[in-house]
């Protein structure tokens, strides 16, 4: 059973795009309006999937297969890549939710998630995962900058084609999801505790709940 989320300084993750005014409610849900008329009771990306289900349904299925389907990478490793990439793209909603999902998968070792995602400390990751995160960071910035040497370094640590493929695909997909959320200014809860049950649901039941 996952413990309470660490007391992260969520405000530090929110740049001045987000108003920090809180509504009268004790339960802070969001502090801004999305750019389009989404359902205000649904946080984050799910409100966008609901706005346009023709694209929302296949995108949730993609997320489910990516993060819960077959891969040589564990579910925890895949959620870690998702959170890492989202943090690099400064997408608060995706970073917080996927870090929470990753912590749920890592269980007793959940501090690893915060070390990697929020403190830039990869030292406790396997050498293979460290090499794959180098590739992920480059893909995040632009796929053209991935070099043969980056790939060779991952292979030297035991990465096979499918590890590399899935790392690139997850990274690319989160470069989409992050932009979707932030480009439409989807409602982003500012209360770190909100993400704990969200992460548990994502980790246990996945994404294609249609």
């Amino acid at each position, binding site marked *: 059973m996952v413990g309470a989320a660490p007391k992260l300084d969520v405000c530090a993750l929110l740049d001045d795009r987000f108003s920090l005014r809180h509504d009268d409610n004790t339960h802070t849900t969001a502090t801004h309006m999305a750019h389009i008329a989404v359902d205000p009771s649904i946080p984050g990306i799910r409100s966008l999937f609901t706005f*346009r289900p023709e694209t929302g349904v*296949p995108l949730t299925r*993609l997320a489910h297969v990516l993060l819960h389907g077959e891969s040589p990478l564990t579910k925890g490793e895949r959620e870690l890549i998702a959170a890492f990439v989202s943090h690099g793209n400064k997408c608060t909603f995706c970073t917080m939710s996927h870090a929470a999902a990753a912590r749920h998968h890592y269980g007793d070792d959940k501090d690893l998630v915060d070390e990697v995602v929020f403190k830039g400390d990869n030292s406790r990751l396997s050498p293979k995962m460290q090499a794959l995160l180098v590739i992920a960071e480059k*893909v995040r910035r632009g*796929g053209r900058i991935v070099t043969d040497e980056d790939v060779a370094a991952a292979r030297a640590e035991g990465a096979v084609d499918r590890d590399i493929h899935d790392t690139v695909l997850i990274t690319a997909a989160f*470069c*989409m999801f992050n*932009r979707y959320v932030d480009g439409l200014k989807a409602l982003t809860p500012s209360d770190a505790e909100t993400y704990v049950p969200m992460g548990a649901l994502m980790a246990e039941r996945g994404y294609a709940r249609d």
Partner: protein
Amino acid sequence: MQQPNASIACGDASGPHINVTSPLPGITGLLEERLDTAEHIRDATHALLRGPSSMTEGERELVATLVSSRNECRFCTNAHAYTAARYDGGMSLVQDVVRDHTAAPVSERMHALLHIAALVQSDARSVDDAAITRARDAGATDLDIHDTVLTAAMFCFYNRYVDGLGSSYPSDESYFETLADRLTTTGYMRKGLDGTH
């Protein structure tokens, strides 16, 4: 936007980073490599680019082309340039948009939407109220704004998938005309590629 640096090794200089079984170039080969994810990628793409929308197919293809060119993805830029050229304005309009989308001969609504697409490509957090207001004032609907943002985001996905794995570039550029034939008729679904549904 980063300028291309000749000293940075590019995937297509030495071949794909992984073994891709299919002989098809670029995304078309990658979408044969892992069918469980490809199915949903195709479904989302077909719905977004060919399904009912308040944007025309040509407008959506212009967004795809602009974003791919800004991401410097040669395969995707050409695939969507040749496809966009099949719609109103032809290749001349496509080139105008890629060269300078702020000066291209498009409607004010499309100017505003292309501006949003460019912001999504570079830093989606920079899509501010002013950019949205500009689009609405020019007649853009919520669906226009949604589809522009998601198309731009989706091409940031495609461009990274294609280039991140160093996937192959067609040896003959007539490939893009054949691809445009397909994308403007059957669209983005897999049906018919190998005779199966």
